[in-house]
């Protein structure tokens, strides 16, 4: 297993995909830092999920005294000046609260590590020699997950330092807190990674993988919202992945942590099992 992981590190460093992924991550951080605002890839969930248990502290800034038209007329440098002086606003914490954004980086990883191997037929070189399907499957899964966790922490560190350097310490949280939040987010991140690796092992072709994986998050969210509307059970939205990642950044209750971790565990187990079954039975072209 270690051999396969070592070989994959060797290969990863020599493919474009990996460097593109890092570039995208840096770009996303740059955008957030520069605009002093966090974008997100999924649907805007802030209204959808009810927050009965906790109080979130609200931000205070000059924006409160301006009308919407005036805010829209602000130039970027003006906006930055205002935001840098805001109170109760921690940019880096908000950035990592929207770590669902890392989903697109993870797609690159899944493609580089798994999909390209299966798609190009190179997997037959591995499987026809001493490495069995089980070992191959687990090594790839473990390696992708490790990569995703490394990216998760890299994202946190980079956001923190970039924020402190280019913006001001005023709108920055403590590194210790950020790391704690990041560590808490690990199961959710692993769930994301599992979904992607599962899809990769099921479809095996890079083109199909991209077609499914890219809109997947949004489609899943839409589906969940539809279910909520039909069944009327609002609580389900609390356990959607984007919401989980967000809430873990905002001082969640112990009960919530346990429940959300359970959801993540289920996702990880189910996707891995499905991926494994599909891979084990498949014909290698």
């Amino acid at each position: 297993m270690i051999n396969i992981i070592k070989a994959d590190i060797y290969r990863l460093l020599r493919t474009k995909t990996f460097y593109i992924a890092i570039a995208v991550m840096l770009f996303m951080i740059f955008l957030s830092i520069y605009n002093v605002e966090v974008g997100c890839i999924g649907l805007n969930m802030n209204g959808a999920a009810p927050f009965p248990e906790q109080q979130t502290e609200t931000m205070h800034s000059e924006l409160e005294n301006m009308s919407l038209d005036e805010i829209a007329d602000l130039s970027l440098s003006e906006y930055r000046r205002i935001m840098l002086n805001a109170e109760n606003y921690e940019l880096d914490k908000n950035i990592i609260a929207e770590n669902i954004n890392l989903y697109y980086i993870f797609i690159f990883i899944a493609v580089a590590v798994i999909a390209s191997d299966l798609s190009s037929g190179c997997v037959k070189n591995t499987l026809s020699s001493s490495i069995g399907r089980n070992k191959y499957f687990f090594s790839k899964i473990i390696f992708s997950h490790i990569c995703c966790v490394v990216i998760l922490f890299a994202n946190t560190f980079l956001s923190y330092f970039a924020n402190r350097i280019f913006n001001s310490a005023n709108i920055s949280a403590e590194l210790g807190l950020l790391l704690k939040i990041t560590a808490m987010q690990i199961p959710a991140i692993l769930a994301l990674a599992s979904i992607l690796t599962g899809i990769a092992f099921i479809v095996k072709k890079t083109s199909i993988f991209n077609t499914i994986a890219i809109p997947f998050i949004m489609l899943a969210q839409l589906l969940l919202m539809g279910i909520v509307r039909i069944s009327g059970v609002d609580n389900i939205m609390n356990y959607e992945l984007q919401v989980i990642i967000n809430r873990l950044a905002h001082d969640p209750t112990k009960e919530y942590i346990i429940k959300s971790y359970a959801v993540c565990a289920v996702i990880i187990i189910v996707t891995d099992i499905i991926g494994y079954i599909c891979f084990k039975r498949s014909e290698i072209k």
Partner: protein
Amino acid sequence: MVLCTIIFGAVSAILLFLLIMQKIETKNISKQLNEIKAHDTNLLIHSKTGEKTSAALINEINELLLEIQKIRSDHQKKSHALEQMMTNISHDLRTPLTSALGYIRLIQNSDIPEEEKLLELEIIEKRLIRLEKLINSFFEFSMIISESKLPEISEINVIAVLEESVANYYDDYNSHNRQIIINCDRHKIMLRSNRNMLLRIFDNLLGNALKHGSGDLTVTVKMSENVQIGFSNLSNDKDIDTEQIFDEFYTTDISRTKGNTGLGLAIVKQFTEMLGGKVSAKFADGIFDLMIKLPAK
């Protein structure tokens, strides 16, 4: 305080990890060596973790394994070739013997005139002489292999021995319209050597050139820090492997049909080396060159 504990914990974890890796690797190497011993295989040892010092160890083991594989395959080739040679030799020995017996029976059984009987007795003699030669060379060679014979060294005139050998073969060459040309500017070169072995070396080389070469044989003697004697002649062989010709089992296709055992040049090499010298061969543009170097006084 907490920081210290964390650092200490991290360092111990890393060390433990490395230790476990090392153990896994060592166990893995033992297991693989076990399997390799059990099968006749070309497999080499693989590393399970890629750890550096184990990798160096694995490389050393693999080099040894490769050597063992090579020795095994060489051994198989040699024993196959030995079988082959045994068959050839027994065939070679049997042929003149059978022929001689046949002629004897002929003389015994039929009524033939005296002159014919004499002729046939001559033929029988020739066959038996050939048989004797073959048995001699085989016996000689087996003695060399067992290395029980040490050459007696005395002061020898190399040129005289060379001339004696040339004289032995003069008639044979002449009858094929071929000549032996000796290029030498001295009449005497004294060496500490063994007369019989030198004679055998030259005999074999001249005989070899007679059998396998064509045209004239040129023998060149040069004296520098050692004595160099070169034997050069044309050759019709398509392909001479100048490394393998000194191999006791090597015969090209053509020589097999001429009834050679391949021992001639092998004896040349062995004897030359026993006398402290070196032998080498070159084959280019249809010319076969063989060089003997003997240490001078």
